[in-house]
């Protein structure tokens, strides 16, 4: 018996673009995505051509100067976002697909399947992420597919757990039990009743997870086990231009700033979306 104290109208959640941090992060994220799509078309020079002396100071020809191999830093920055965001993005999506299915099945079936799946997740969680990626690199060398799948696998346990919790919570709700009593098919119940209600926590968790993917891609590239030169990649640029930090600092600072801007604004945006759905990302993370 629950005391009837539920407010009649749930206060509609704070609209997304009302607070200034959200607005800024939204703008930054949109800008970066545009950069990834149109960047390659705007490059003043070919990003992989050696055009001038290495670590040259910014000049009219090279607004951000040149890097270790004399390539134009600006062109490489314009192109460098693609690999980080694409690999990070695809890995996160795959992680969600696999993790989501496991979480739904575990949350919905409960019983034996639930515990087996969750124990399996624990085994995956046993590996600190970078160690797992290094392990894969031992086997598959610099293959980007192995890197993408590796990062996806790292996300699977976390996603599975969130989706499982959300599914568990929703499956005891009245409207799901009514559907069960009606004998609706499982697929219908999942599609009509459960999935629409667990989008909130999943999206809220998406932001930080995408950031984690980007940082992992960056770290692996830094260790020289990811993207190969002469491809332009923000993380690789930081790694290969480190020795020139005193000569042309922009060759390291600009890509570093791009990664930071992307990850910070993503975190901020995800946080706002989470608040709109009533459970801030941190609380979400706590339950992980």
């Amino acid at each position: 018996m629950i005391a009837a104290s539920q407010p009649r109208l749930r206060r509609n959640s704070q609209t997304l673009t009302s607070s200034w941090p959200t607005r800024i992060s939204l703008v930054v994220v949109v800008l970066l995505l545009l950069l990834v799509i149109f960047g390659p078309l705007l490059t003043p020079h070919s990003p992989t051509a050696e055009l001038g002396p290495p670590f040259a100071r910014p000049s009219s020809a090279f607004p951000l100067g040149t890097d270790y191999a004399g390539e134009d830093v600006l062109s490489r920055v314009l192109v460098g976002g693609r690999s980080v965001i694409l690999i990070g993005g695809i890995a996160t999506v795959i992680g969600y697909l696999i993790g989501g299915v496991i979480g739904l099945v575990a949350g919905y079936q409960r019983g034996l399947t639930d515990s087996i799946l969750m124990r399996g997740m624990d085994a995956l969680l046993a590996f600190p992420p970078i160690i797992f990626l290094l392990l894969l690199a031992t086997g598959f060398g610099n293959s980007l597919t192995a890197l993408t799948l590796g990062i996806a696998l790292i996300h699977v346990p976390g996603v599975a757990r969130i989706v499982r919790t959300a599914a568990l919570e929703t499956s005891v709700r009245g409207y799901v039990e009514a559907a069960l009593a009606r004998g609706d098919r499982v697929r219908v119940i999942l599609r009509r009743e459960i999935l629409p209600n667990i989008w909130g926590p999943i999206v809220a968790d998406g932001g930080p997870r995408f950031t984690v993917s980007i940082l992992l891609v960056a770290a692996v590239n830094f260790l020289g086990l990811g993207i190969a030169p002469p491809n332009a990649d923000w993380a690789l640029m930081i790694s290969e231009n480190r020795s020139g930090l005193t000569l042309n600092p922009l060759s390291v600072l600009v890509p570093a700033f791009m990664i930071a801007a992307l990850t910070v604004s993503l975190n901020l945006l995800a946080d706002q979306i989470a608040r709109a759905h009533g459970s801030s990302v941190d609380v979400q993370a706590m339950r992980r």
Partner: protein
Amino acid sequence: MSATALKVRVKLRARHPLVAYAFRRTAIAVLLIALVSLIVFAATEVLPGNAADQILGRGATAAQKAQLTRQLGLDRPLLAQYGSWIFGVLHGDFGQSLASGEPVSTFIAGRLGNSLILAIGALIVMIPISVVLGTLSGVRRGRPVDHAVSGVSLALIALPEFVSGTILAVVFGVTLAVLPPTSIIPVGSSPLTDPKILILPILTLCFAGSAYIIRMLRAGVVEAMASEYVQAARLNGVPEGRVVRRHALRNALAPTVQVVALTLQWLVGGIVVTETVFAYPGLGQGLVQAVTARDIPVVQGITVLLASFYILVNLAADMTVIILVPKLRTEL
């Protein structure tokens, strides 16, 4: 499960549940470690190319390579190889490094100590600061200190270790020349003999790690501060200081332990990168070298060690949480 075993389990569970629970969780942990070792072995054995090429390298004749393959037992079926490897690991013998022929355990032993010093150093610095900052911003939610701490921690989380490390090394090590930019120590001695070299690597690790703890801790504290029993305590006249300490924080303690255990997962990754940036002679740098040298036994040894270490830490964290939360402790 035979009847007697069931009876024993129930009796054990009845008399001291905590021990029974610890026993069960340790058994699961050991199982996990075995599973992890299987995954590590499988991942590394799936390699293109043959280990003998590695050792003899260039110039070796086919006959020499075949002879070495037999000598290392690499021609036996995978399961037998795994059996002997695991048997060795249990006795502390991780096999021989392909590149140098030295036993892997000596390679690991030297570097393990250094990495532990770095990890423990980072934890000692990181945890108190982030616990204080996390709690402060949680208790004073929405006030300036909260915005400041949350803002900074949000930015720090986004800064990869190799960026902050590089910048720190150049600024403090080279331009200001105040702190050693790399970890050079007298041969064979421990980093503690010259602690100055630890400052920059630990600072690099603290940036990312502490940001993570602060954000998670803040969420835990905010949730506790908004709880019913905190409001009841305030209505019973308990002074605010005591409300925060005895009621809110006491119950936010358990999630904090879990957060710290989670942070270790990132710390291990951070150490690998930080050791490479500062050329710190630890296990992380050793692992990167081994991976690029495709030195399988070294990779297997270090990975199993790190993964098992991490599983045990998780187990310890779970046990601490059980002890901290009365409800869990009594309902085992």
